[in-house]
């Protein structure tokens, strides 16, 4: 069927008129969710924030004995930061998680290390590197290193290019392939969620430090995780690191991770 100019203009005119009416109709159809009442309180307290020149964490692997010890750290973090769960492996979002020695320390592995270490899960999180490759590659400066060493994410700026995920050698970053909100079991109303199309990761609980609180995982671990200032020789982390042998993940890459693992000897088995 061929169409002459007159017919085309008629058709275009009718379509335009229909289109103008259609937009407002669609807006009306869009529903809104039912919500319950909420009591508001003013934030009136300003406790002393925790301040450091170089934040770091020590993971005492020997103090993690049961599955529960790991899970309570993971749950503490994921519940207060509205981290979605229960998706497929591809959609997984994780701030703190566990993996085997072989995967966590691939270049420090040999076939004769004690079974107690080889088969033990290791608690992993963002290493907040001194020389973070994710920050170098971010085209929008959405991820950046704070003065206190925390490698932060500014979700407002993230465009979801995932360069940082490719750059991070530790797999510490997760992408929101879908809207995370339906997958959050119980929302923490004090902390935002993320949206579809942004990358997220551990922030060393920057929002808790400013209130004078330790990171959530440290608090939940009951001493198995130690958090402190690496630049302060009298800090707890420095005392531990100067008395016990520690290893870091993929040190040979030169990113200078700030998460230290105390492996210890056979008694950890």
């Amino acid at each position, binding site marked *: 069927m061929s169409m002459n100019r007159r017919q085309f203009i008629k058709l275009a005119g009718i379509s335009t008129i229909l289109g103008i009416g259609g937009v407002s109709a669609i807006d009306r159809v869009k529903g809104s969710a039912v*919500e319950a*009442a*909420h009591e*508001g309180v*003013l934030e009136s307290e300003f406790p002393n924030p925790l301040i450091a020149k170089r934040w770091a964490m020590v993971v005492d692997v020997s103090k993690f004995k049961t599955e529960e010890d790991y899970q309570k750290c993971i749950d503490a973090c994921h519940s207060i930061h509205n981290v979605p769960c229960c998706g497929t492996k591809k959609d997984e979002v994780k701030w703190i998680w566990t993996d085997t020695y072989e995967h966590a320390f691939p270049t420090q592995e040999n076939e004769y290390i004690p079974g107690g270490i080889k088969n033990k899960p290791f608690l992993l999180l963002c290493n907040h590197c001194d020389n973070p490759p994710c920050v170098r590659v971010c085209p929008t400066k959405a991820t950046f290193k704070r003065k206190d060493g925390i490698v932060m994410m*500014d979700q407002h700026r993230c465009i979801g290019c995932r360069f940082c995920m490719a750059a991070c050698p530790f797999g510490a970053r997760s992408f929101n392939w879908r809207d995370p909100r339906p997958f959050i079991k119980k929302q923490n*109303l*004090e902390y*935002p969620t993320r949206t579809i199309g942004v990358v997220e990761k551990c922030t060393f609980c920057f929002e808790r430090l*400013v209130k004078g609180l330790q990171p959530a995982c440290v608090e939940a671990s009951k001493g198995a995780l130690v958090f402190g200032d690496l630049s302060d020789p009298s800090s707890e982390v420095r005392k531990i690191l100067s008395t016990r042998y520690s290893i870091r993940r993929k040190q040979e890459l030169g990113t200078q991770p700030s998460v230290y693992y105390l492996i210890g000897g056979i008694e950890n088995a």
Partner: protein
Amino acid sequence: MYNGGKIIVGLIIFVALFTFPFYYNIGKVNAKPEPKIDTPAIQHLTPEDKHCVQPKSFMRGEHMQLLNQWRDSAVRDGNRVYDGMGGKKYYISLQNTCMKCHSNKKEFCDKCHNYMGVTPYCWSCHIAPKEKES
């Protein structure tokens, strides 16, 4: 002119339809949006505390710039304390400070934003306070 009558009638109908919204609304007052500030949290405030972090006129015109400053201060500089009007200090947080008082997003934020046809994307991440369907 071929089909002159039809064309002129068509043009008249077109002009009438196109300008219909203007005629339809002539004489009607275009109601100004009136954002409500009568939330329980605000009503509990003492009269001397019953103000926002800055004067009302400033908040009306510049709250978007202020929110951007707050965002940069909290996320990028790690500073969560804001010196507000009259030397009062506020914790910088959209969810935990702004919305604790203004817990009526639909009657407060949305009133003007809908009127102006702006859709800020705050709420795609920040959790809006729970409120009753109005």
